């Protein structure tokens, strides 16, 4: 029970996010209106994705330094959860874009960057599945994971800032700091980021333990 305090924290944070996020007062802004509540769901997805992919890269580096099956499994599961967060981020973003920008997909640099980022990680999964031998698969996909992450950084953080974008925080558009001068949004936003990220970590934790057990069963059969 002592080691599981963070799981309880996750549940509490997410319940808090959903309940307060849906019910509390939000600033009345033109165009955004009530969709501003999506801030608690869309934005944390991207924060969570970046953090979880970072976990994946860290475990890939750990694998290259000290090859063990555990590091490989965690890197793989983290990449998969990162993809899940990315897909959810894109879906919630598209929904939001429909209400505020008028179109699901408006060829915005942020949207395109996100789609390409997902393609990179789908390629990672394809690469993994094309090896039969386990050690080779682990090492080479670790190499690609690190390489792809290095290519993802300019894609997500540098390119959108150079081009005009509808997305807040780019191309002369104010970031979200300009909107929530009253701190009521922050009060829910930061717990939301923490809660969703912890949920991702929880999924990785469960799935990698399951995968390790499965490997052990295969070895004993």
């Amino acid at each position, binding site marked *: 029970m002592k080691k599981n305090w963070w799981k309880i924290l996750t549940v509490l944070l997410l319940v808090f996010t959903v309940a307060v996020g849906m019910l509390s007062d939000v600033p009345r802004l033109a165009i955004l209106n009530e969709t501003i509540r999506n801030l608690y769901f869309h934005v944390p997805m991207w924060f969570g994705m970046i953090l979880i992919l970072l976990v994946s890269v860290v475990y890939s580096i750990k694998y*290259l330094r000290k090859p063990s099956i555990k590091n490989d499994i965690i890197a793989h599961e983290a990449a998969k959860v990162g993809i899940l967060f990315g897909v959810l981020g894109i879906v919630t973003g598209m929904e939001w874009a429909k209400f505020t920008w008028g179109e699901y997909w408006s060829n915005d640099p942020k949207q395109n960057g996100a789609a*390409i*980022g997902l*393609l*990179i990680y789908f*390629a990672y999964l*394809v*690469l993994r599945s*094309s*090896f*039969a031998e386990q050690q*080779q698969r682990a*090492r*080479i996909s*670790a*190499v*690609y994971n*690190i*390489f*792809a992450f*290095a*290519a993802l*950084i*300019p*894609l997500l953080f*540098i*390119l959108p800032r*150079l081009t005009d974008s509808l997305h807040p925080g780019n191309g002369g558009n104010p970031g979200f700091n300009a909107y929530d001068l009253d701190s009521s949004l922050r009060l829910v936003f930061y717990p939301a980021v923490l809660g969703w990220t912890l949920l991702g970590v929880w999924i990785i934790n469960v799935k990698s333990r399951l995968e390790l057990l499965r490997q052990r069963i295969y070895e004993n059969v």
Partner: protein
Amino acid sequence: MLFKEVIYLMQKDFLLEWRQKYAFNGMLLYVSSTVFVCYLSFGLRSNALQVPVWNALFWIILLFTSVNAIAKSFMQENRGRLLYFYSIVSPQGIILAKILYNACLMLVLALICFVFYAFVLGNPVEDIPMFLLSILLGAIGFATSLTMISGIASKAANSSTLMAVLSFPVIVPMLLMLIKMSKNAMDGLERAASLDELLTLLAINMIVVTVSYILFPYLWRS
């Protein structure tokens, strides 16, 4: 020591290329037939393509050419030769030599492609030196990122499909910058307008070379 290795390995690559003329002639034919296919399928007389279309088509042709040209860089080496290299040179030497060799190859191919393309489809470029600079940066950028990817793909089973799948997403940021920069050159904008793109491209290249330099030894071991 590393420098000497790189020089020797590059000499070897150029020598092999000169003897076989396999990759180079093949790619030359690939470029010219692709350009010709584009010309025929658009069915136009010269100078009838709009500037953005001309530009995008040019870079797409170059992208496919480079993927095909560079995919060979590790696949054509046979097993015995790789084992021999493994025992006498450092992996860093190999990756640097391959990158430099591919950059030279891509530069030559890209220039030939540009000349032929401009000849067949018309040449709307206003600031030619700037456009050539973007071709130079493009050749180096494609070579750096695709060399590492081809190393990764050559280890897998269905490497030619994998090459495309792995490389396209990684190369897109570079491609976007290049298209923007060459568009500026085509419109004859001030050169200072392209400075941002130029610096970003150089930065991306630096990141990719550094990461390849660090990671290649792990790839090489298998």
